[in-house]
């Protein structure tokens, strides 16, 4: 019941505020604090957190729906939810009781905002090569290195940071006000322009040992892997939301724009584009639902089904946004219509949480066992 209320409130808020204002957030390159506060009040930031920590304990379909609603309104809002919930997921799944008390409860309430810091200036897809170094010094871990393209680095309070300790992968939590952590905003991204990206520079940044989330060769596979898998799931549903927004905008436009004496939708080549968009969007939805049901059953194939859903949904979002821009003609490339933003944001889906190529390699190597029948 509580969950239904969250989805209904978010849907209403999205229609009244987020969808109409998303273009402004994009232009100003920021998500207003008032929006963050309102989402917090609804319980969005505790969506995937157990009730024990003040969260909503939504199931996978409901988390998908939250992502879809946000993705429909704005890729940047979706990324806020994604990176924050990756942090809460990491703490809930792998955190100590002390870590949960310190961060998970305030994160679930939206009193703290979390971010996910793995990418580095020299390291993107190949996370085995992380250069950020953790060194043990008495009761502390000293962090040196830098993280690049970190969504909501400009405002986040706590960061999930991956690096290496004695050569082995390790993850820990760094609070924003830790001495030695410098945060530099990154502006003018092509897509997710309101994603408030930043670069983190750790210069002999000391954090207590209790901030460690784990260290050994399985950490990358398990902790970083499971957190990325969570992020992939929300991005898959968010990309579906964006595809839907493209379809809705295009159907509306083709009914109101006349050329050659007829509304655009009467022209068969326009119908072809609409058909492709509708079928692509539906196929994304089915793939997302397939992943959600595997997740709700905690099936071992949820990982590959989620990767496949994200791949399908991201590719379809890009095609759909491209068709939407085509259907809108010059209007589609102007800032008077949202489709140019959809197209820019759709491009990002193919880069984050496993690029198109990374997912292709993953699916080709395992798809046969897990998703071919």
């Amino acid at each position, binding site marked *: 019941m509580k969950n239904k209320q969250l989805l209904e409130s978010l849907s209403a808020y999205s229609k009244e505020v987020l969808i109409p204002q998303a273009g402004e957030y994009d232009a100003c390159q920021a998500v207003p604090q008032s929006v963050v506060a309102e989402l917090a009040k609804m319980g969005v930031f505790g969506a995937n957190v157990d009730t024990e920590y003040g969260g909503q304990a939504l199931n996978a379909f409901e988390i998908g729906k939250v992502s879809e609603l946000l993705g429909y309104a704005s890729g940047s809002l979706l990324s806020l939810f994604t990176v924050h919930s990756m942090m809460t997921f990491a703490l809930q799944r*792998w*955190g*100590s009781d002390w870590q949960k008390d310190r961060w998970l409860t305030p994160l679930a309430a939206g009193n703290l905002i979390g971010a996910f810091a793995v990418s580095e200036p020299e390291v993107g897809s190949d996370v085995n090569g992380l250069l950020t170094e953790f060194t043990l010094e008495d009761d502390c871990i000293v962090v040196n290195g830098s993280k690049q393209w970190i969504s909501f680095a400009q405002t986040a309070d706590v960061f999930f940071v991956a690096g290496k300790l004695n050569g082995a992968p390790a993850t820990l939590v760094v609070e924003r006000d830790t001495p030695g952590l410098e945060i530099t905003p990154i502006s003018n991204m092509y897509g997710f322009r309101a994603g408030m990206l930043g670069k983190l520079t750790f210069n002999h940044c000391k954090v207590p040992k209790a901030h460690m*989330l*784990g260290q*050994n*060769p*399985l*950490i*990358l*596979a*398990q*902790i970083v*892997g*499971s957190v990325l*898998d969570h992020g992939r799931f929300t991005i898959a549903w968010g990309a579906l939301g964006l595809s839907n927004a493209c379809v809705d905008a295009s159907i509306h436009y083709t009914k109101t724009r006349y050329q050659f004496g007829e509304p655009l939708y009467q022209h068969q080549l326009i119908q072809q584009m609409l058909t492709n968009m509708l079928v692509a969007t539906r196929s994304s939805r089915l793939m997302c639902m397939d992943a959600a049901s595997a997740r709700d*059953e*905690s*099936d*071992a*194939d*949820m*990982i*590959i089904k989620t990767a496949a859903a994200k791949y399908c949904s991201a590719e379809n979002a890009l095609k759909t946004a491209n068709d939407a821009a085509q259907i809108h003609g010059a209007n589609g490339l102007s800032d008077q219509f949202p489709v140019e933003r959809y197209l820019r944001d759709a491009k990002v889906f193919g880069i984050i949480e496993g690029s198109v190529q990374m997912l292709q390699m*993953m699916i080709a*190597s*395992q798809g046969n*066992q897990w998703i071919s029948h």
Partner: protein
Amino acid sequence: MSQAIVNTVRQFLEEYIRVEKFENDENIFAKKYVNSLFAMQLILFIEKSFGIKVENEDLDIDNFSSVNAITDFVSSKSTV
């Protein structure tokens, strides 16, 4: 060592591992039969099939490196 656990684990691994035959004490990671993505799926499988929770401190590759290691790990978790 419970034969039932061995059988369940083998059945899961056989579906995945692309070699004709592998022994219960063979290190599936060292022999590169499986990759790190598989480790995630293996842990989900173990949690669901045996009703246990793999904790942060259990994330030691030695616990999952062979059929025998997985069986020992599952047995130890089931008795605590």
